[in-house]
Every structure is written in C-alpha cells, then in structure tokens.
C-alpha cells in the first residue's frame, strides 16, 4: 500500500482537495480532521523556514517517520500539494509535478472553477489522479 493520501491546500492554509487512496487506517479521519491537518501542515511549513540555521530556506519539502513519509511541492502562487506514502515509496517528486500539471490543465483551466475554492466537479482531474496513483502502486 504505497500511497496513502493526497492533499492540496491554498495559500491561506485552507484545504481545497483531499483524497485517500487506500483503506490503510482502521479509524479513518473525518472531513474536519482533514481540514485541520491541512491547516496544521501550513503552519509547520511556515515555522520550518523560521527555525532554519542557514539563510534562504524554503518550507518543508519532506518529512519522514518510521511508518510514513510526506512529500510537499509548493507552487509559486503559494498553493501546496502534499502526499503521504509508505517510507519505501519512490518517485513522489515526479508524482507531485505530474499532479501539478493535471491541476493546471483540468482545474485552473476549468471556467467554472473559482480560485482558492475547494475543487469540485473537476472529474477529469480526479480520473487522471486516480490513474496516476494506480500506475505508481502497480
């Protein structure tokens, strides 16, 4: 079970998209808990750059624990994409840049999508995301 969950948070720290890919957790998180996690990561991201002992640090790019790994990509607009996976899962960077491309193509170019708002009704985006995850898990 390589990829667990995928999140997109807007530049204010609000969760605009979230999806679980595996029934990896016995006690699944509720929508509110996902919202909180998204906001929480936004905070960690900002604080990490503040405690840097060297100049010019970005926010969090990667976090690893014994059972899970988190990888984050921040677009220039401040939108953050992050994915959680098992620590052995490779090529999460490629995954995130590919998802960013889908986001640009199927969300941002959707005339009904309002910037910074939750992503809904973008079926093509979801379909491509699912296919990408399936290809990585195979």
């Amino acid at each position: 079970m390589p990829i667990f969950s995928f999140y997109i948070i807007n530049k204010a720290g609000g969760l605009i998209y979230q999806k679980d890919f595996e029934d990896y957790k016995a006690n699944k998180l509720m929508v509110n808990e996902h919202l909180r996690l998204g906001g929480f990561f936004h905070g960690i991201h900002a604080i990490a750059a503040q405690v840097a002992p060297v100049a010019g640090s970005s926010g969090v790019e990667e976090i690893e624990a014994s059972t899970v790994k988190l990888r984050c990509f921040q677009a220039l607009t401040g939108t953050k994409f992050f994915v959680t996976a098992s620590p052995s899962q490779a090529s999460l960077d490629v995954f995130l840049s590919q998802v960013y491309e889908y986001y640009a193509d199927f969300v941002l170019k959707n005339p009904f999508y309002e910037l910074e708002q939750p992503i809904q009704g973008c079926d093509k985006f979801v379909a491509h995301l699912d296919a990408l995850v399936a290809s990585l898990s195979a």
Partner: protein
Amino acid sequence: MPVYTLFIFDRKGTCLYYTDWGRSRPPTHNDPEQEQKLLYGLLFSMKMFMKQISPDDSGDFRYLRTSAFKLHFFGTLSGLRFALFTHPSAANQSEALEHLYAEVYVPYVAKNPLVEKGEVITNEAFVEAVDDYITSLPVFAE
C-alpha cells in the same frame, strides 16, 4: 560546515543544551529563546501530526527536510527531545542522536547527582563529549 546546530529539550520544553558548529543565519529576531520556543513547538506538534497521517498511529518522527537544511530528531520515552540540524543531503542521523543520548547524556547528565532536573547543562565533560562525538560523525566531514 555540514552540521549546523544541536538542541536538547526536556519534557517541559526547557532547552537543556544548545550548541552550534557555525550557522550562517542568526536566530529569528536575534532572539535565541524565541527560536527555542518555536522549535520546541514544532517538535511537540509533529508528534500529533505524524500520528494522524500514519497508517497505524505509531509514526515516530525521524526527520524534516527543506531546501536548506535537514532536521533530525530523536525522542525518548521520558520526554527528552534531541534535534540536530545538518545540510539537506545528509543521511538520517536519528541513530546518532540515540547514541548521543545513551552514551553521552545518560552517563554525564542522568547519572550525575549534581545535576538539577530541568537545569541548563553546563557540565564541561558533557560539552566536550558532545562536541567530540558530533565532530567524529561521517556527516560532519562531508
């Protein structure tokens, strides 16, 4: 220098020990205490965060990486937290921190009857042993 700083916190968030091997950026607002509080807050909340995103509620936080540094972490059951900042391409140093705890902290601080709980460590033998150990790590010479 590829190893930047080391922090040791007790369970209450007091910074028991801080040392650096050359850092190019001073603490935020030039206030070391502020930086220690920020870092302790980060490490503290990390535990909860990892537990939530981990598949089996047991994720032990190991490291956090940004474009400019890597923060290695080791926490004990008694609530001590060791945090080591290195350059971002270093291998994970959690085991080195565990060694630092078992072979340096325990003999020089935990077993030392003169050390008051929650007091900043000024013990010279400890300071020297920490420096010797960290500078002997392969990551230090990279």
